[in-house]
Each structure stands twice: as C-alpha cells, then as structure tokens.
C-alpha cells in the first residue's frame, strides 16, 4: 500500500514538473457590456484613438497620426507607467478599431531564478486587441477582445509575470473600462 502511495505521489510530482516546463501559450480575454444609449453616441466616445478619457486607468495620452492606420499613442497610467500602442485598423462604418502594444515602461525589477527580470507596466507580451460597438435596437453592445502572451517568455514564470497575472490585469482593465464607458454614455 505504501509503495502505491509513493508511486502515485512520484507520478503526480513528475506530472506537475512536466506541466510547468514549457514555453508560453497565447491567452485571450473578451468582455462586453450592454449600454442603454445609441451606438453612434457610444462610438463617439471611444472612436478617437488619441482620446482615452473614458478609461479610468489612464492619466494622460500623447498621440500622433489621428485615426489613420499606423497612428501611435503613449498612454500614461495613473500609477506612472507608460504604454505605447499602434493603431492597426480603424473602421468607422463597423464602429471598431484594433491596436497593439509596441512598447512599455518597467513597473518593477524583480529577482527570479537568479536573474533580474523587468516587470512591464501591463503584465502581458505581444498584446493585440480590438474594440467594437454594435447597435442592438435602441441600445448598443460594446465588445472588447485581446490576444496576448504572459510577460515572461521563458519557462517557469514568476508570479508577477505568469498567465494568471496577465489574464487578471486584462480582465480588470476591460471590466472597469466598460463599466465607466456605460456610465458615461448613459448620462
């Protein structure tokens, strides 16, 4: 009996070790909100790539290129972090735009596996997202979607840079952002 137990825990240990020793897998998050306001009005609030006043986490924006593909914006977060984003596609007719993060400031430098690791302002890697407004009768539905990797691209990530950290950060951003957008549009 004892042997069996030992074997089982050895197997469990092996399985855990194997499951952790890997390269990252792309993650995704999507969220949506129904807003009791016309789609035109909601799109009007979010459509300008250089205007992020609807997103609570953002302190200020400096941007160039307007709503043209390839336009860039630097978001300064309320905690001081900076995120640079590039506009990939802007479609006024479909009331949607897509963008990706091209650069970020370092939030903290931590020691992990004997090395210094830079935790980025937003704990994700290779992040691309899109946001879209759709009319639903007199109301509208806003959908925000992102695909990304965790911030740590090697095996065995630190807690600050693992999948959970990435997924939580994106989910929180979407939730607070969409809730605030709803509040602004329904005013």
């Amino acid at each position, binding site marked *: 009996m004892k042997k069996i137990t030992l074997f089982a825990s050895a197997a469990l240990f092996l399985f855990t070790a194997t*499951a952790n*020793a890997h390269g990252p897998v792309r993650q*995704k998050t999507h969220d949506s909100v129904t807003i009791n306001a016309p789609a035109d009005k909601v799109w009007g609030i979010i459509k300008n790539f250089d205007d992020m006043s609807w997103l609570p986490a953002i302190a200020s924006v400096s941007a160039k290129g307007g709503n043209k593909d390839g336009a860039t914006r630097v978001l300064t977060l309320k905690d001081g972090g900076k995120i640079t984003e590039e506009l990939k596609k802007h479609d006024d007719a479909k009331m949607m735009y897509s963008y990706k993060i091209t650069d970020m400031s370092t939030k903290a430098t931590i020691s992990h596996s004997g090395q210094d690791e830079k935790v980025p302002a937003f704990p994700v890697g290779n992040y691309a997202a899109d946001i879209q407004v759709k009319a639903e009768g007199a109301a509208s539905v806003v959908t925000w979607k992102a695909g990304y990797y965790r911030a740590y691209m090697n095996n065995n990530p630190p807690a600050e840079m693992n999948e959970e950290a990435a997924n939580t950060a994106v989910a929180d951003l979407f939730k607070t952002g969409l809730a605030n957008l709803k509040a602004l549009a329904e005013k």
Partner: protein
Amino acid sequence: MYNHPKTVASFLATVFFSTALSAQPFAYISNQLDDSVSIIDTASAKVIDTVKITGKPAGVALSPDGNTVYISTPEANGFAVIDAKQHKLLKHVPLGSSGALGIAVDKSGQRLFVADWYKNTVAVIDTVDFKIKATIPVGESPSGLVVSPDNRWLYVANRLSNSVSQIDLHTLTERNVTKVGEHPFGLSIDSKGQRLYVANVESDDVTVLDNQHLKKVATVKVKTLPYATTLALNDSRLFVTNQEDDSVSVIDTATLTELAVIEVGDKPEGISTHPDGQHVYVANWFDNTVSVIDAKTLTVVDTIPTGNGSRAFGLFISQ
C-alpha cells in the same frame, strides 16, 4: 433484375452500411486553451466527439489511411497519438522539449516529423515504435512542415531565420535552404510537387517558391499576419488565413494575385482543404469556431462551434 425480398434487404443493408462509413472525412481541431481535440464530421458539419488531450494541443497531422491522428502538445513536451476511429487517446510520446509545434506524417505513414521550436531541429519518429530515428538541424524556430507528394522532400518554415529548409527524406539531411519573407509560419505544396507557398507572418505576404531549386517565383501581398495556407480547386486557388484581419485571402495561382478577401471568425489560424477540393476549413482561435468556405462561391457556408482556442495547425482533415 427482379425484386427478390432478400436482395432488397441486403441491398438496403449495404446502403445503410456504406452510409455509416461515408461519414468520413473528419476534421480534427486542436483547442489549445481547452486541452482538447474536436472531431468534426464534415458531412453533417457537426462536432461528433471531443477528445481530452493535455499539454496545450497545437499542431495536427493525420496518417494517410486516416486511422491515426497525431497532435503536438508543447506543454506536455511531445505529441499525442489518437485512434481516429475510436476517438481515444492511444498514447503520449514525450520528446523532452516544450518546443513541439509543427507536425507532419510522410506519405507512407511510417515516419512522423515534429519540429522543435526551441531546439531548432526536426525529429524523425517511427510511427510503429515511436522511437526517434533522427534529429535534423534546421533554421531557428521551425514551425510549418510539409511533405512533397512523391515523399522525397520535407519542407520546413524557419520562423526566426526567415527561411525554408528542404530536407532530403532519403538521407535525412538538409539539402537546400532559401530566404523567404519575414517570419514564415505555415506552408503548402501543390499536388504535382512543383510549387511551395509560404505565409510570412511579419511581412504580410506569401512567398511562392519553385520546388526544384527553391527559387523565388513571386511574392504576393495579403492582409495582416498571414498564418497558414491551403490549396483548393485543383491547385488553382490558394487560401491564406490572415490572423489579425479576421479574414482569408484567396490567391489565383495562375496570375499570382489576390482575388478576394473573405471575412471569417476572429483570429483565424489553421486552414485545410476537404478531399472534395472545394471546401476549405478555417479554425478561428478567438471565436472557438471553424468556418467552412466554399472555394467556388467564395462564401462562408458553415460556422461550426468547437472548443476554446482552436488552432489546428497542419493538415487536419482525413483524405
């Protein structure tokens, strides 16, 4: 011929039996975030079963007889072997590296090739004893793999080297290597083995190579982040998933120009052609669906719900 009841009965039985068998072909869709593989009966356009596969399943390859499915499982450091008829996981083969992604079977069904994203090699595995017979060094971050129809060559897209390797399947060595666009990922070869089509993720184009000397024939611009390719309608059309454009580009292979752009689901990745040559299946990673395109009308004729994070990277439909 007259209608004897027994003849009718056996005739009916035959019809029934062949109908049951003709449920083939099947599409095997790896759902990376679900740790599963959806099995689609292409006749009914429905998922008929789902097989749990741990290790974040990504790449798909099928034995030529359609009896076995091989799925690369990067987080489980190797690949899974599935009984295609019983829908059962037969075994998991560890390769000792988390870089397993691109996967392909040779035309005899006897050798399996698995590209290692981190070790920059392609492992050659015997499909009977699942032992590694050879490890071939290629370029950096090898991804897509395709075998020539005459079973003579294996082509490898080396993502970080911006190149394609041609592997001699007699000597199991690299015979030739050529530069393509930026970050090649998926690739296809036509049924005559004359031309190779390579999707370049970063340069938003497809490189067309002549198979003999890997000479560049053309570069065709497509949409954002082309990921994988497939040929349809007797090789006259090339279909390319544009991952960041939620679309599929259609290229006329005679004029080598983009004919049409078809909207599919969100973040299309893997793409394969049904053996009828007319229907093209696209795995939509964000939407958790498969879009079915009619290559003649260039419209989406079906959208099939699958599992979370459908990738299906490779030739995923039984032929």
